[in-house]
């Protein structure tokens, strides 16, 4: 199976590889895995008080498509509000990278990682506001 040029580009020159301090209150960490293939993906978002994503980092142990998907979304989410980032669909990732059907789950993993990172950030920031909403 041939990888698309975009996948190869992200695989050979991955953007934003690395880590933030996961205990930083402004950092949301999303850790997801694909049990079918054993891939693990960590995505971290640094979020300003205005709810805008200032920076992103990832570490992915998996195939080229999983690395490319996570690299791509770290580029996409910078400058986005968390509400907009949450709306990123795996299909946009798969389209952008021309992922073949057998690799669609890699883009799903990246979408899940964004959602998990935002959920982690919200957990850190607002236990008070969450309970307000619930009551």
């Amino acid at each position, binding site marked *: 199976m041939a990888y698309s040029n975009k996948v190869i580009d992200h695989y050979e020159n991955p953007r934003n590889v690395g880590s933030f301090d996961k205990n930083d209150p402004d950092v949301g960490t999303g*850790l997801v*895995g694909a*049990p*079918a*293939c*054993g891939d*693990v993906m960590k995505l971290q978002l640094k979020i300003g008080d205005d709810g805008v994503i200032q920076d992103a980092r990832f*570490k992915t*142990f998996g195939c080229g498509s999983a690395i490319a998907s996570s690299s791509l979304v770290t580029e996409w989410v910078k400058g986005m509000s968390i509400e907009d980032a949450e709306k990123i669909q795996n299909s946009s990732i798969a389209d952008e990278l021309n992922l073949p059907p057998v690799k669609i*789950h890699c883009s799903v993993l990246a979408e899940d990682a964004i959602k998990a990172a935002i959920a982690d950030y919200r957990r850190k920031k607002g236990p008070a506001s969450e309970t307000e909403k619930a009551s």
Partner: protein
Amino acid sequence: MAAVRASSSKTYFSLLDLPLRFSVDLADLEQRYREKSRNWHPDRFSRAPASERAAVLLRATELNEAYRTLRSDSKRAEYLLKLHGVDVSDESKKPALDPTFLSDILELREELADARVERDNEKLASIKHRIASEQKQLSERLYAGFVRLEQEDPAALSELTETVFVQRYYQRFADDIAEYEEAQAGSNAVL
């Protein structure tokens, strides 16, 4: 196991005249495979009509696949789960794993990456050893879990599914290490 038996008349187990159980005597399995393979060897049917030769070839292929699947603990476990309606290779399935599990795996992956950069062979060996011992424990959990499944313990199926998923992560990890070592050995040979 009654539902399984009814829904699948021919399984890899029945091909080798084995009961539908996880516990398998590997020496016995190999002997059965060899005997059956002899009986179904395509050379023995070289003068048979084409349709019969095709059927024999199909049977020989099935036997090979059955043997390959049943002799590996992890493949046998996945196959049995599939007969129980759980397909662990289905990528849309997202089991709720222990949340610390993924971070443990990631941490170990990072350690491995560091050890490779630093060419720290002692550390590499220790990581390999840890993975092997995790895999051994997981195998033991599989044996215990399938005994409970065979005794129709209702919780056993979901626990086994989780164990098989966890095992897949470690298997992938072990495969990566093996691939890396092979590549290293290859480049050393060139030098």
